[in-house]
């Protein structure tokens, strides 16, 4: 078994601050201040997010569950592990190439659009000088970001979901130490 944050309260608050900032400024990668140890296939950055967000009142769905990772999450966060993606508050995508369609996750209902899933997607890397342009709340003019390791069909599925606003799914992408957020309000511009 592995340890988690050395100081659970303050360490998760420091990470939460960065995640909040990442969500407020979509598609602009930010560095996470603290990375805890993590069992495979969860990366340290994804584990930092899970330790920060999950507790006994939330449920998590793992794309590639294994005993060690499940035990680790249960021990350190007390979270419930969801059997199927539609029931999860948070989902960890450790293999984006084979991720289930976005429509399989909860995307809220008209009275409670907040009852939707937040996805944590482990990707290979970010490039801010390439890729698509994005616009929306929190972005001055446009933001450019290429996300390596994300399949093309992800963007098609997300575009199909865009018509359902305010329903939708919020995503965090993590690579190495960095996190970039893609809330449902961010539009991908056609180039």
């Amino acid at each position, binding site marked *: 078994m592995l*340890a988690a944050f050395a100081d659970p309260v303050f360490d998760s608050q420091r990470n939460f601050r960065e995640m909040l900032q990442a969500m407020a400024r979509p598609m602009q990668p930010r560095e996470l201040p603290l990375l805890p140890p993590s069992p495979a296939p969860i990366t340290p950055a994804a584990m930092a997010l899970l330790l920060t967000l999950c507790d006994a009142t939330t449920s998590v769905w793992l794309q590639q569950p294994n005993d060690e990772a499940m035990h680790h999450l249960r021990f*350190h966060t007390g979270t419930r592990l969801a059997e199927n993606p539609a029931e999860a508050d948070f989902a960890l995508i450790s293999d984006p190439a084979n991720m289930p369609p976005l429509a399989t996750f909860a995307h809220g209902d008209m009275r409670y659009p907040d009852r939707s899933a937040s996805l944590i997607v482990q990707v290979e890397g970010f490039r801010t000088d390439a890729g698509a342009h994005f616009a929306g709340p929190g972005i001055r003019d446009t933001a450019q970001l290429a996300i390596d390791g994300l399949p093309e069909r992800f963007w098609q599925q997300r575009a199909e979901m865009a018509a359902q606003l305010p329903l939708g799914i919020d995503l965090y992408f993590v690579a190495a130490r960095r996190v970039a957020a893609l809330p449902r309000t961010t539009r991908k511009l056609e180039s």
Partner: protein
Amino acid sequence: MDSSPHLARQQWMSLLAQAEPGELATAMEAFALPADATWLRPPQTGLYMLRGRVGGTGPQFNLGEVTVTRCSVQIGTRVGHAWVRGGNSRHAELAAYADALLQDNEQHPQLSQHVLEPLRQALQARRDAASRKAAASKVEFFTVVRGE
């Protein structure tokens, strides 16, 4: 090891948790923390809701909240856990560490002799003192039969 290791562990965890922090610290002085020990969960203090049932079978009720400090440590492949009443982090650390050592069949007899046995005697002495004090203040009530 006991024939029922689960029950035996419950008993020693209970004993470690009920010990006075000072007694436990003295008893554990001889056992230094090994270098490969990892604190999986550093001592964390929080509140637990104590619940009870009247007569053990009645409906549940909330008795009140109690301060509890928990701690977990890993030594080699063994993980020691502790939940102790109160906010004493050192007590939780020592109890978790002792729990990890007690699971090791080689170290168990030594710990049993130098740690558990003195703690058991001290706990028994405290209980006896408390019941003697209570017995000294016992009042016998009786009703005088009224002549009608």
